[in-house]
């Protein structure tokens, strides 16, 4: 039996998971239209490789990765590309983002694809390539490209690979039902990952409120070199850093990554996606999404195509609009309200929550902080939320950073326990954004300074160069004046003027002589070129006559004109030669 460590703080909100676990995973089917945002992950948005009007097959790549930290997108079903345009997506800002819109043809026709018969024969680069080409991004919610996470430097030692089946947030059951129904695929996917990164031990961490999922995993993992660890339920055990502490007792250093302590975490959903990509050659085009809350008649889990509109999915679950006030993507703790139900499901949509007003009421007005300290007790990152709340209100960003604001995982435990109903997390989210913004501004102003200084330097240099030229000219003029004064001191100025006039005349005559020769050359040249032109024109005329073309008349006029010109030129030359002979 493995020792289970704890982590600081945490809360026990009502789980509300049973509602959506009554039925097995249902297939959501093919919606008439799919909207696939190009940015569903952390990193650069994918670049479309199809054009409007193209027809695509299921699994065909429709957008390629733009850079290392990026993932490709694939068509979830066969159909036609009807638009590549800005659409509303599931994002708290309500901004538009570039999307590829596919009208499905209902045939659901696969593109030719094949997996590896035995993944044990594949080398690391090949495995990572397959994962990368399948467009897998972390399916727990953050959406970090999985292939990037798995691309380790050659000398990195990984002690522990952790598969995250915790799913600690209330209402969400997508991972739970995945473990119940597809335990074998999770285990196979885990084996592929362990082959890829060769850890010393492989753990699958599951909270003890999922006994059926645990049993299924244990049955599937018979005889495998991996351990399934059960630990007490507490929110937010599923946070990457919290899970690592629970299973290994090690803390990820502040500002660091799990990789720094030799740990890699993957969500169970991503594991299944890796299995599908490697063994079957299927890209990530669908996922399990929980649809729950009192706003739907049959809360349940769906296997849903990426890009399916949320409204379509809600209808499948028996949407009751009168019983639902707002629609939330994600869970009640870390999710956010989506602008409308028309936005698409993306790779990170693990839950669609349609609560009634009584189920998840609007937060009551916030009261003053009474310094009770409950937030500090609940904080899983051992921060001081009430202290940071004051700093955030006063915009004392330096102090916030000193209090390790950036270790906040925005889990919402502090807001949840706050007896004054202060939306604490929002203060931290906004402060983080402001700090990042001011860092960006600082970078920009540094850049502007460099450019300003470079320009100043250039202007100074140009001034100096100009000054040097002026000085050189002045010096030359002075020298000339001096030479004139010394050389012709006693010379009569009138005589000098006459000399200058004579010299000028001589120069003019010389020029004229040169001009005469030039004149003759020019005339000769005119004669030769005109003659040449006449020859080509005549040739063309002959050709046209032979072909019987209707241009003959026009060409004839051309030839006549050229001949006249030639005669004129020859006459001019002759006259000139006579005159100068």
């Amino acid at each position, binding site marked *: 039996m493995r020792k289970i460590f704890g982590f600081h703080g945490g809360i026990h*909100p*009502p789980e509300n998971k049973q509602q959506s676990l009554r039925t097995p995973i249902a297939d959501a089917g093919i919606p008439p239209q799919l909207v696939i945002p190009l*940015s569903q992950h952390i990193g650069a948005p994918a670049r479309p490789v199809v054009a409007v009007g193209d027809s695509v097959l299921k699994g065909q790549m429709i957008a390629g990765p733009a850079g290392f930290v990026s993932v490709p997108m694939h068509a979830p079903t066969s159909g036609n590309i009807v638009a590549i345009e800005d659409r509303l997506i599931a*994002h*708290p*800002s309500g*901004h*538009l*983002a570039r999307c590829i819109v596919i009208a499905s043809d209902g045939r659901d026709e696969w593109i030719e694809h094949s997996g590896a018969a035995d993944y044990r024969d594949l080398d690391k680069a090949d495995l990572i390539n397959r994962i990368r080409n399948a467009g897998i991004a972390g399916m727990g919610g953050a959406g970090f490209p999985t292939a990037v996470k798995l691309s380790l430097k050659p000398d990195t030692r990984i002690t522990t690979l952790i598969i995250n089946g915790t799913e600690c947030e209330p209402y969400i059951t997508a991972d739970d039902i995945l473990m119940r129904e597809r335990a074998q695929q999770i285990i196979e996917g885990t084996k592929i990952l362990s082959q890829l990164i060769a850890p010393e031990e492989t753990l699958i961490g599951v909270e003890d409120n999922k006994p059926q999922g645990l049993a299924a995993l244990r049955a599937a993992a018979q005889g495998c070199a991996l351990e399934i660890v059960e630990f007490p339920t507490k929110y937010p055990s599923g946070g990457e850093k919290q899970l690592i502490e629970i299973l290994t007792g090690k803390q990820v250093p502040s500002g660091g990554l799990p990789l720094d302590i030799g740990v890699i975490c993957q969500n169970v959903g991503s594991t299944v996606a890796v299995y599908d990509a490697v063994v079957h050659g299927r890209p990530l085009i669908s996922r399990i999404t929980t649809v729950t809350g009192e706003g739907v008649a049959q809360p349940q889990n769906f296997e849903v195509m990426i890009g399916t509109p949320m409204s379509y999915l809600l209808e499948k679950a028996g949407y009751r609009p009168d019983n639902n006030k*707002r629609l*939330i993507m994600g*869970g*009640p*703790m*870390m*999710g*956010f*309200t989506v602008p409308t139900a028309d936005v698409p499901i993306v790779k990170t949509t693990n839950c669609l929550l349609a609560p009634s007003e*009584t*189920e*998840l*009421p609007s*937060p*009551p*007005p*916030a009261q003053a902080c009474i310094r009770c300290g409950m937030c500090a007790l609940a904080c899983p990152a051992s921060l001081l939320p009430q202290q940071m709340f004051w700093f*955030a*209100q006063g915009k004392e960003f330096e102090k916030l950073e000193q209090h390790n604001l950036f270790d906040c995982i925005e889990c*919402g435990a502090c*807001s*949840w*326990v*706050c007896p004054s*109903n*202060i*939306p604490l*997390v*929002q*203060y931290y*989210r*906004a*402060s*983080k*954004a*402001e700090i*990042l*913004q001011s860092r960006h*501004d600082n970078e*920009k*102003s*540094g*850049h*502007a*300074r460099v*450019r*300003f*200084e*470079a*320009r*100043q330097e250039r202007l100074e240099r140009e001034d100096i160069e100009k000054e040097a030229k002026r000085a050189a000219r002045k010096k030359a003029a002075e020298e000339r004046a001096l030479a004139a004064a010394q050389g012709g001191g006693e010379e009569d100025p009138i005589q000098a003027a006459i000399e200058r006039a004579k010299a000028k005349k001589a120069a003019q005559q010389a020029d004229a002589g040169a001009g005469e020769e030039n004149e003759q050359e020019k005339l000769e040249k005119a004669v030769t070129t005109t003659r040449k032109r006449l020859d080509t024109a005549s040739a063309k005329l002959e050709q046209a006559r032979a072909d019987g073309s209707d241009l003959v008349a026009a060409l004839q006029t051309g030839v006549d004109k050229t001949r006249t010109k030639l005669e004129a030129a020859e006459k001019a030359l002759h006259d000139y030669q006579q005159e100068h002979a």
Partner: protein
Amino acid sequence: MLELIAQYPLLAALLVLVGMGAVFGALLGFAAVRFKAEGNPIVDQINDILPQTQCGQCGYPGCRPYAEAIANGEAINKCPPGGEAGIQALADLLDMEPIPLDEEHGEEKAAATVAFIREAECIGCTKCIQACPVDAILGAAKQMHTVIISECTGCDLCVEPCPVDCIDMIQEEESLQSWHWQLPDPVTRQVGIIATDAVAVSAQDEAA
């Protein structure tokens, strides 16, 4: 000699003190030459706080000259692009009381702007290019000019010289990338996020 000193302890003390004075004086003199600071370091620190728009609204030809002037006792409230936050940072650095922005030098802009040339109207006079302090305008004589937005500091200096008034200062639109969470309203503290279903729990408890 030694005997003389031994006889007069006063003389001994005097000699020791004078000797010490000479040694430390020499040491300080050496240090002053050896570790001489180039320029005024406080100017660099002030310059780091200034927004580097190089707009000249403070009355100095650029941010660095104004930083030098501040180091020599100029008021710290003459930089509109830096705004109240900039004045606060300068006051913290120089251990002064923050003072409100001097309206004479302009008002703080609500949002950052960048210059935009209506290219169809540009006559290619290069006057804006000469005015730009950070070389953010691209063009040549009798050729259309354009602004490199990523380099523009929004200083407004190019607007004035344009003979055909074809330069606008426009606000950069908020995009999906530049969007970020805002602080809750300071009075109501209401936000549209979830996280606070504590009341739902107590309601359930009451029902149970």
